[in-house]
């Protein structure tokens, strides 16, 4: 029985599936590879299910990036991020001040526009007609134009994985500005008075306003995170790891490295109805490394109590922590 050809067949097919997966994930991938892979995949349902199987598990291991120091809480010295360039000019600040938080005149509702919303703690994946994907994070509102090449992020955060089309660039209109993709994966978050754009792959252009002829504020390359506030625009270059942490919500995780406690709490609160409140200003100095499920308020509170030695008090929908 052990030399039953069928028995070795499953092993062979599953190994082939793993080989395709690693080729796609780690090496150059040409159109010819894609065609050959498609042929292999459609050759047999056994190939198809074997590939689904390795792919599903491989995607699960994405959160291994959180494994470096899960719940390893430590207090670390303050370090400033490396700033690549800063727009400190009064003109730029004035432009941003006028635009952050408001919506420009170009933000007119179009025909055939669709609105997608998520409740607190929810996520939603939107697949566009050209295969582009948008993942809408917690408590967000996104409107999609009829052509599928323009979106308005009215609230919250979204991850964009856009199929590039030089003739029809994809535009995200957000907080009075425009992000124009030049073939790319990026994340956009809008909060009161603050806009963040992080670029993972490709290239994107950040424009001063939503007008088509708007001035270019910055061209983002992989690793860049642009933060616009009333005080100006900062572009910092982050490590791949830091970027990956910033996207861990796509796996329902929040991963922090050297993050101030109030930042951790603010992030966790975005995903939960029960809010954590820091009632002790001295805690603002505390920095921690942590990985927490997005719905892990209880886990976080346990850590605060047991590892950080903080006092925890529960009041209605609030959890108050102090020294």
């Amino acid at each position: 029985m052990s030399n039953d050809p069928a028995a070795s067949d499953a092993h062979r097919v599953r190994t082939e599936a793993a080989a395709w997966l690693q080729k796609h994930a780690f090496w150059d991938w040409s159109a010819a590879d894609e065609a050959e892979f498609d042929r292999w995949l459609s050759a047999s349902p056994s190939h198809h299910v074997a590939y689904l199987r390795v792919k599903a598990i491989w995607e699960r291991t994405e959160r291994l990036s959180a494994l470096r120091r899960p719940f390893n809480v430590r207090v670390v010295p303050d370090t400033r991020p490396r700033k690549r360039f800063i727009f400190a000019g009064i003109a730029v600040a004035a432009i941003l001040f006028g635009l952050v938080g408001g919506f420009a005149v170009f933000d007119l509702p179009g025909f055939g526009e669709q609105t997608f919303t998520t409740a607190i703690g929810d996520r939603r994946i939107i697949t566009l007609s050209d295969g582009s994907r948008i993942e809408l994070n917690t408590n967000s509102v996104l409107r999609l134009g009829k052509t599928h090449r323009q979106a308005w992020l009215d609230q919250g955060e979204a991850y964009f994985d856009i199929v590039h089309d030089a003739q029809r660039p994809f535009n995200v209109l957000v907080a009075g500005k425009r992000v124009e993709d030049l073939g790319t994966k990026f994340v956009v978050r809008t909060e009161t008075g603050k806009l963040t754009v992080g670029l993972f792959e490709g290239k994107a252009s950040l424009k001063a306003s939503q007008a088509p002829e708007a001035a270019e504020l910055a061209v983002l390359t992989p690793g860049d995170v642009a933060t616009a506030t009333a005080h100006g625009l900062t572009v910092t270059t982050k490590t791949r790891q830091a970027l990956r942490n910033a996207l861990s919500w796509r796996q329902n995780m929040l991963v922090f490295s050297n993050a101030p406690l109030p930042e951790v709490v603010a992030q966790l609160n975005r995903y939960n109805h029960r809010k954590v409140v820091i009632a002790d200003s001295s805690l603002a100095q505390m920095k921690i490394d942590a990985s927490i499920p997005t719905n892990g308020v209880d886990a976080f509170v346990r850590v605060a109590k047991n590892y950080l030695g903080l006092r925890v008090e529960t009041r209605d929908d609030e959890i108050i922590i102090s020294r």
Partner: protein
Amino acid sequence: MAETHHSDRKSAEEARRETLVPASDLDVWFIQEVLPLEADVMQFLRRSWQNASDVEDLCQEVYVRTYEAAKVRLPRPARPFVFTVARNLVIDRARREHVVPIEAVADLEQLGVALDAPGPDRVVLARDELRLLQAAIDRLPPRRREVVILGRIEGLKGREIAARLGITEQTVGEHLTEGIRALTDMLLAEPQGAEGKS
């Protein structure tokens, strides 16, 4: 209870999977509802089939039959359906190969019914999931573990891994292939929790 839980999950899933062009519901169903049963399916097959070296093949065949049948209509809940497929497969094979006495097949049919019930305490917290992933990585042979860690945790490309470790790109490819294979087997061998559905 089971009814409510099921319909909740379905509607949440539908809401999340809003698509403008229909995504492959079948693939999603297979990943979210069939794959998590692998630990139990494998246990069932090991108990039902004498020759351990056939079990991987049987499992793969259960998946193929399940997937093909689900093309017509998604069986929900998946669990009883998958176990029926597994049981029928074992009976077919036993009859065809004349290896299992009929008594054993009869036992098997009872066993199959018993296994349709969900096992106890299937909730795995995300923290436990991380621990599980860590443990699986730790079980890889040292060199393979190193390659997988550089690729998955450090985010290096194949070429960079080869340069870092001073090994050929072909060797890196083989380690990644076998690493992915082994991690898949190990992680699916664990009873699955609510994790994949959240």
